[in-house]
């Protein structure tokens, strides 16, 4: 099996290596992304220097030996090597003895390659054609308006002529006597039965609506406040598939899921300074927009992007809290997310699709209790084993629900 894989790999790699200059850039890009991108960027300093145009700065032979075994060069006191080592806080670059000179050439070809400026033509014809269609609609409109006006005028004229003819022939046309209809409300007032029906209907509907109004007080389902930093769960949890509990790690152990501290963000964002993912132009979520939001994080955490250091000048982010239970309710994330293994999405909804985070569930007591009545206890957890055995026998069920174990007692959540 392994051999087949290797063969496949060689088969895939062979053409890319052997084929000419153009293929080099593609192969170089792949190599760069897998090996270098963790510490280097093309046009920006990261852990290591920016690599765009690096082959012009250094001799090619020097680069070969530096990439293959830079540590040795620093040891040997190569002036260029030592200089760069000193510049970057004496951080040693990983050695790549496995690289062949050709592979290094490919990488350098990629770093030297400047993509051609994006083409901004071919729009005119389309614009013209669309203008044309607009024009024809307008013409049709104007023409039809004119036709209809003429028709109306003609009808009036016909009527006048007919009246004249009638007068001339002595036919008297009397205007119809207006029937004095009683207004509806008077009718209702006079009819006791109708009155009763209306009052009852009014009372019932107002009770219905006021009940509905009152019951939604304090329920913030759908609450999606504007946050100080536009943090997109869709990008992080959706596109990048980051586990919820990577950032909300205290959900495993604590009652709070925890808003991640900014140092957690910087685990990745020390290296990811620009947004290069998909854009949502309709809502104005361009790459620039997202990149600006990342810069907001840098300001907050005090990260000097230029020099790749923390300045210590921090501005803690004041997030707007979305999910908020009243003080008299005790809720523990660890009990649900860790012990009961409830998926985060069960209560928080499709977070990985939320560009703006909102409250998915009503978070009402009825909602909690419904779930407690339906969910089963994890009988494989040794803590529950004994009581599960005894109680399930007593109640004559296979699986015990949380409610049967006392999970809807008042003081389980209110103390």
């Amino acid at each position: 099996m392994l051999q087949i894989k290797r063969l496949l790999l060689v088969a895939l790699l062979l053409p890319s290596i052997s084929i000419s200059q153009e293929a080099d850039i593609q192969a170089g890009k792949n190599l760069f992304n897998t090996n270098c991108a963790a510490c280097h960027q093309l046009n920006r300093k990261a852990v290591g220097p920016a690599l765009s145009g690096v082959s012009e700065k250094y001799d090619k032979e020097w680069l070969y030996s530096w990439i293959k075994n830079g540590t040795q060069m620093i040891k040997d006191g190569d002036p260029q090597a030592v200089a760069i080592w000193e510049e970057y806080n004496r951080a040693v670059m990983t050695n790549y003895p496995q690289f062949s000179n050709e592979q290094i050439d490919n990488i350098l070809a990629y770093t030297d390659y400047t993509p051609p400026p994006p083409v901004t033509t071919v729009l005119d014809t389309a614009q013209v054609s669309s203008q044309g269609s607009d024009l024809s609609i307008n013409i049709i409109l104007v023409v039809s308006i004119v036709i209809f006006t003429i028709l109306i005028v003609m009808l009036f004229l016909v009527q006048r002529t007919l009246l004249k003819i009638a007068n001339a022939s002595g036919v008297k046309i009397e205007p119809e006597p207006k029937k004095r209809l009683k207004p509806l409300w008077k009718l209702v007032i006079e009819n006791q039965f109708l009155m009763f029906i209306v009052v009852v209907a009014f009372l019932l509907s107002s009770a219905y609506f006021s009940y509905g109004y009152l019951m939604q007080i304090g329920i913030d389902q759908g609450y999606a406040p504007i946050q100080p930093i536009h943090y997109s769960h869709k990008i992080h949890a959706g596109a990048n598939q980051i586990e919820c509990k990577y950032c909300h790690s205290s959900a495993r152990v604590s009652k709070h899921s925890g808003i991640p501290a900014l140092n957690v963000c910087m685990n990745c964002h020390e290296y990811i300074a620009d947004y290069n993912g998909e854009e949502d132009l309709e809502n104005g979520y361009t790459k620039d927009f997202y990149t600006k939001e990342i810069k907001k994080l840098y300001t907050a955490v005090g990260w000097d992007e230029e020099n790749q250091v923390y300045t210590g000048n921090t501005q803690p982010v004041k997030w707007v809290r979305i999910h908020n239970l009243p003080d008299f309710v005790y809720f523990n994330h660890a009990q649900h997310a860790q012990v009961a293994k409830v998926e985060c999405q069960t209560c928080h909804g499709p977070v990985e699709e939320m560009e703006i985070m909102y409250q998915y569930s009503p978070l009402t007591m009825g909602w909690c209790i419904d779930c407690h009545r339906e969910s089963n206890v994890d009988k494989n957890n040794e803590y529950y084993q004994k009581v599960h055995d005894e109680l399930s026998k007593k109640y004559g069920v296979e699986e015990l629900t949380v409610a049967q174990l006392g999970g809807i007692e008042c003081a389980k959540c209110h103390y």
Partner: protein
Amino acid sequence: MEKKNIYWKGFEELNKESEIVKSLEQNEFVEKLPVGNEGENKNHNRRDFLKYAGFSTAAAAVVGCEGPVIKSVPYVVQPEQIIPGIANYYATTIADGYDFSSILVKTKAGRPIFIKGNKDAKSMNCTNARINASVLSMYDVFRLQGPKLSGENISWKNFNSSVKADLSRLLSENKKVVLLTQSFASPTTEKIINNFIQKYSNIQHVVYDAVSNSSALDAFENSYGKRALADYDFSLSNTIISIDADFMNDWQGGNYSSGWSKNRVPNEDNNFTMSYHLQFESNMTLSGANADNRVMARPHQLKQVLQSIYFSLRNQKYNGPSLGSYLDRYVKLAVESIKKSGNKAVVISGLDDVDSQEIVLMINELINSDAFNIKSPKLIFQGSDKDILNTIKELKSGKISGLITAGINPSYTLPNSDEFSQLLNKLEFSLCFSMKEDETAQNSKYIAATPHYLESWGDYEFKSGNYYLSQPTIKPLFDTNQFQDVLLDLIDSQNSFYDEIKNNWRTNILKGKTWGKSLQDGYYYSYDNISLNRIKSNLTFSNSPSSNDDTLDLILYTKTGLGDGQQSSNPWLQEFPDPITRVTWDNYLTISYEDAERLDLKNYNVSNGALNGSYVNLSNENHSLKVPVIIQPGQTPGTVGLSLGYGKTQAMSEEMNVGVNAYRFYDDFKRVHKVKLTKAEGDHEFACIQLHNTMMGRDEIIKETSLKEFVEEDKSVWNPTVMVSKNHIETMVTSKEVDIWREFDRSTGHHFNLSIDLNKCNGCGACVIACHAENNVPVVGKEEVRKSRDMHWIRIDRYYSSQDTIRGDVKAKDETSGYREYRSTQTNLEKASANPQVVFQPVSCMHCNHAPCETVCPVAATSHGREGQNQMAYNRCVGTRYCANNCPYKVRRFNWFQYSENDEFDYNMNNPLGKMAINPDVNVRSRGVMEKCSLCIQMTQKVKLDAKKEGRRVRDGEFKTACSESCDDNAMVFGDINDKESEILRVKDGDRTYRVLESIGTKPNVIYQVKIRNSKKI
């Protein structure tokens, strides 16, 4: 001629000049009618009330419709150890000059919120009410926020350089400066002070303990050549003879009750024996209340008692004045008991003269007492009365030009404090290290703001070879600097106090153990016992003459709650009921029935039950004070007691400013003084939370027996099953037939029980404060307590016997027959006897399985859990108070007001600082709801969750409540009775188990253990 009858409406009209008549000529009414809010008339009428009520209801409804926007601010860089919602514990040490203990501090989100004893430490690991409450003292709004110079705020840099300049000048002029400090018991601090004195040779260090232990220290020094106190382990003694030593309280630094309690329960392991505790004393103390026999004697007699015991043990004849037959008999009993127990006996004394203390040491040596430990003596107090008196003399004579005080408040605690303050004020140089701008700080030029001990570093040697460390549990709240750090700065050291401690420990103290491990543990024991050589000392057997009849002995004592008074602005401690008198928010003169009657002094209850008491003028040749009186059963006639620690006025809110300052009478640092009493005008209003002092012979609440009966008789004799009448047939209350409820099967899952052992509980009240801290119990203030609206979830009832013993009461009641006899007996039983037996009973919610409160709640706000808790859903409660009315144990507490964020109740919950002590896992209850003990459900839930997270069963001993955790005496055992191996099940199935008011069939989950007394009859 017309004659007109004139009718007068009243005599006033005859007086033509009358104002009333004049005004009535013009107006219909004499006074302006109160209409609206005209002019200065601010009284609102009924219509206004309705308007306001209507408006505010509408406004509240409208406001309620919109949820507030809540901001959440996470850490920028989250400390590795801190997880929001998970508590961290730090081992540290309290040593505030009065309390000394190794403790564990629970912190949540970086805020210390709860203190418990560090049980891994092998000595000095107990907590008490003051230590438990000390966490709140850190969040005191009256704390200094930075250093001050002549009342102006100043930076630390300028402060230090200014102090340095002053000190250098004084040094060059060779003017004497005294460094007056508390007892630090800290090896590193001692080193720093020595270095400081080396640099500034004009400085003399004097140690001052507000409550002096000087005589005991002098005696030990005379006997063994080291300034220390003997240590005692009461678990090793079968006979404890205490002569005026309140060792269950804070005698010689406390920490003794846990040893005492270990030997108080007869069981198979100790062959059904228990220790015998005989107490001779004048005031009714906590130790006396718990003694098997308590003997009343006046102070001069106590001294004779001690001497008499000493001579008898040496088989010599005692030549002192006669003690009288009553005392003679008990001295004989004491001597017999000591002889019988041999080295298992111990004698201790709190008499504050050197001779008596030396005699105590001699006696314990003579009987070779096991409990008596001089190999590792206590070093916690160092103060010397002589030095202080000398310092004050020098201050008066002008020999001292500068004074540095640290950790003390002499302007409050010295007997001649006013004079001292004036002298301090006039001094050329005065520097006060203080947490608050207290009496002493106000009279000092420099005030150095110091951190609370929970924000500080420190090291201690409480006993020889027993070292302790304290570490900060929170970043300092204010711009404060430790005393030691300032000294280091003054001697131009580059090191911080922390560096010094670490260096000192590494080089001089630690042998084998690492610094990190010691810091984590909070202690280090070198087990190097010191050897002390006996110095021959000449005992003198002086006796003070017996007093005349019109003078009384005033005995100053310290209360369990406030101690020496350094925490007197702590609302928890102010509202803490004294274990003996049950009075809160006050100190008072305790007086015997006999003397009260002679002086026509009274205690009486007013119509709402609150207690009032007469005032007296207390005076001797130097001082006089007007004090209220509490008539105290057990107070020796001819003596009165008054507690220190009250009457502090500065750096605290007006509400806390209660009681009188008894330090005024603390001349020469002697506890006993001759005083005269005269009745004064007026009555004092007390806030006493217990209105009834005796049990009236009811044996369903407190059950007790004698050791002899317990050993020899069957359980049915001393703890019979309660019988109730069904169809005129006596039936056991445990029988199903008499139960009006259907039983719920509780054999699965957890079932919590709390057992309270009346034999071990000494009423110290540490649990009351622990409950305060854990459950956010509000403080309601003196006025509300007076109206019986106290909020404590657990109270410790104290009952006196009316006869000689509590069992005597039961007997007296049982033996009455006929209405007339019954009535007179009942009346007699209401009055506590002159020297009563005392019993303490902690009472919290009983969590009845058949709870009367649950059935009467109209909204089902209180219901029963399958794990045994009687649950209270505050958000459901509408405040009918039916449940409280139907509770036979009276343990439910109603929130009459909003006690948090309400200026009317300006205590800890009304300021942002005090609110930091709130436990985030427990709700802060609002106005109009009932609350009560929840059996610390937040703690049991946490233990369960921890087990679930780890996928294991709960281990025995894991389940705890705040009260059981704080009980050093192990009087409270909590756990799951469905766990077949648990200690609680073993205790519950024991013979001593009974339930309070069992006959009413409530089936409580809080159970009690019958009290056994080892009293000896003479």
